[in-house]
């Protein structure tokens, strides 16, 4: 294998692994922020226990997120030194800001996790979630601006292979920044809401501790509420992305859609199999004119086709499949969440409970499918930028390291991720398997739960 391919595989592998934990890292804080708020306001020990248990499990995923994040941070220089030498001139600012955001989060997360019983007034403890949510979401924002710069570079003059006259803010807030940041953040929130909904659904299906039913039902309701809002926002983000790609990165949109001829009234192609030689698509579901509409809110929008783009700048056409997967897995969550609320609101007439086992199976799939959507979305975004590392300025093949030993490095990291993945699943399962939520609730908040007159908000005496 050549070094470019190994370098890409290694980076792809690290990112695919990191993205799981990074998504958890961005999404979970907002969940325990909401749950603890509900718990304190309603004096409901269930919600407090829930936020506490989730925060406990979160620490394990944070640890893996931190170490894999460190890996990707350094791997950029180790695998793509020429890119960092050139790009370092310009992405230094957001990378630096990301570190600050992460620093901020790390400090307050440490405090949050070890001060559950330390404040007289529980609202003080809740306030700690603000810097955590800010820090984790802002680090996603800043790092996404870096990736956006690689897709739509801006804010410099390119003279003799160097970036000159750099405007750091223009580079950071390049054309694709806003739409991508929005997309990344809301999908992270959505995915985590569905992940936790999955846990509630599975626990309701296979209750080991029957006394936990109320707890999991409450959990499911909160997660579905967050999930449905975030899924709607995700749809909006997806629509904005299509319009943005049409304007700024037409080759990517054309490759998503196997769109070869530049034309108005372009069709939206779903699924199908492509014969690359003849440019013929078989077994597809073709929705007439919709691509034009998605790209520009009008059927008359002219959508650029791949045949008008130089062949050596074509992204790989396989990304169409990732596009399909992302859209369908993402929409699945939205659909199921809507079903949950419809059934819940109409149960008086239909006599079907929103916790019907069949429905629970449907809810249980939302988490894993949302994660698959995230992975597919990133594969799509990153492979769709090929062959460029900085679109229009530097090719991936010119950026890879000249050092020997990429092959062995690839193997070593693959082994590492397998081990880390297995151990974190093992620890997480062990952490919750033998302890019912009810038992922990009693342990933390006592027999009576929280008395309504208890002004301390449930702090143990």
């Amino acid at each position, binding site marked *: 294998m050549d070094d470019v391919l190994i370098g890409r595989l290694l980076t792809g592998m690290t990112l695919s692994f990191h993205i799981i934990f990074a998504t958890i890292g961005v999404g979970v804080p907002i969940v325990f922020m909401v749950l603890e708020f509900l718990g304190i306001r309603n004096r409901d020990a269930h919600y407090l226990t829930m936020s506490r248990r989730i925060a406990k499990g979160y620490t394990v995923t944070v640890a893996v997120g931190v170490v894999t994040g*460190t890996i990707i941070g350094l791997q950029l220089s180790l695998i793509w030194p020429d890119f960092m030498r050139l790009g370092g001139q310009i992405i230094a600012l957001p990378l630096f800001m990301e570190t*600050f955001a992460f620093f901020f989060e790390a400090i307050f997360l440490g405090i949050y996790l070890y001060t559950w019983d330390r404040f007289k007034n529980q609202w003080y403890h809740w306030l700690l979630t603000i810097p955590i949510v800010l820090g984790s979401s802002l680090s996603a924002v800043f790092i996404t601006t870096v990736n956006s710069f690689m897709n739509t570079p801006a804010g410099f003059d390119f003279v003799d292979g160097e970036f000159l006259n750099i405007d750091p803010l223009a580079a950071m807030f390049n054309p694709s920044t806003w739409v991508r940041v929005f997309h990344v953040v809301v999908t992270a929130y959505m995915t985590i809401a569905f992940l936790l909904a999955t846990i509630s659904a599975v626990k309701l299906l296979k209750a080991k501790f029957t006394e936990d039913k109320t707890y999991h039902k409450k959990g499911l309701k909160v997660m579905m509420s967050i999930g449905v809002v975030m899924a709607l926002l995700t749809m909006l983000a997806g629509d904005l992305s299509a319009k943005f790609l049409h304007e700024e990165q037409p080759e990517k949109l054309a490759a998503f859609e196997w769109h070869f001829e530049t034309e108005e009234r372009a069709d939206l192609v779903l699924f199908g199999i492509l014969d690359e030689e003849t440019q013929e698509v078989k077994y597809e579901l073709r929705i007439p004119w919709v691509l034009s509409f998605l790209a520009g809110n009008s059927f008359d929008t002219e959508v650029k086709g791949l045949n008008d783009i130089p062949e050596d700048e074509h992204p790989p056409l396989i990304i169409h499949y990732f596009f399909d997967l992302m859209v369908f897995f993402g929409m699945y969550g939205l659909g199921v969440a809507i079903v949950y609320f419809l059934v819940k609101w109409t149960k008086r007439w239909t006599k079907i409970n929103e916790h019907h086992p069949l429905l629970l199976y449907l809810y249980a799939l939302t988490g894993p499918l949302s994660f698959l959507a995230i992975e597919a979305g990133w594969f799509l975004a990153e492979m769709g930028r090929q062959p460029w590392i900085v679109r229009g300025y530097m090719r991936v093949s010119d950026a890879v390291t000249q050092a020997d030993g990429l092959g062995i490095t690839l193997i070593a990291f693959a082994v*590492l991720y397998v081990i880390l993945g297995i151990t974190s699943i093992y620890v997480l399962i062990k952490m919750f398997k033998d302890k019912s939520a009810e038992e922990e609730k009693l342990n933390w908040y006592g027999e009576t739960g929280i008395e309504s007159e208890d002004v301390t908000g449930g702090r143990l005496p």
Partner: protein
Amino acid sequence: MMSLDYEIIGITVLWSFLYLYVIIASIDFGAGFFNFYSKLTGDDNIISPIISRYLNPVWETTNVFFVFFFVGIVGFYPDTAYYLGTSLLIPGSLALILLSIRGAYYAFNSYNTESKLSWDALYGLTGLLIPASLSIALVISEGGYIEETAEGLTLNVEELLFSTYGWSVVFLAIISVLYISSGFLTFYANKAEDEKASELTRTWFLIWSLPTLVITQFVFLGLRDHNQVHFENAQNYWYLFGLSLLSMILAVFLVWRRRNYGTAFILIMLQFAFAFFGYGISKLPYILYPYININDAVVNENMAFALTIVFVLGLLILIPSLVLLAKLFLFDKDYVKGNKKY
């Protein structure tokens, strides 16, 4: 408008963060090792609670100091990404793997229902190997191990493997981890009014002070052989190294007489500060001898300005947060003693 010397600002900021990382990470790495060691000797019931009470809330923060340094250096001096990135592919990846194992297994072990000795071993032992592998970057920065030809860069691995200077730095890194960490734990255990624990850590500290003294001499000798220019330059700053030695003598004296462990730890920090900044200043203007010189490798002016602004703003948020963290877990007597259900 006054023109700012960004290359000096950049390197001062980064060097200070690297210094802080050396101190904080040493405490962390050493604590992990002592935790494992005490399980082997059966002293773990004395010392492990103290160690975990300190480490649990701060371990993530430690890691950020490191990330901060490498993001900062690539930001201020993008050439370092090219030279160090290319030459450190293997040693850098090794350090990353060790760091990941340590960070992850530390968390796995502390949040698992019962801790496992094999996991203690994983994060205890990697804690000593990480400083060793990271110090390779400092060794390489002295020059002589990288060759730049028309084909590109090559790291002369053989030269590196048989280098006296290289090995003395590696051992210095390992020994100072144990020295700094035992010094801190003596202070922390004493603050917890845990006499047994502080006696144990005091012994460890006294044991490790002698090798610390010896190995620093080797580093100087190694540097003289390896990079004459740097060695001679270092002599101009003899007083910094003298102050470092003086701080060490005072620190060891205080600990030996069982007095003022807090002051003793400050002296240990000063000891390393003098030596670390003395080494750093005498190294200038080179970041990587002779390829990266801070005067011509600094990032362009606009970016350097933006980075400096962000850095100042960042510190305005970070310092109070770190103070809060320290107040809650380092200087709160009840927490340190393990009183109450914290």
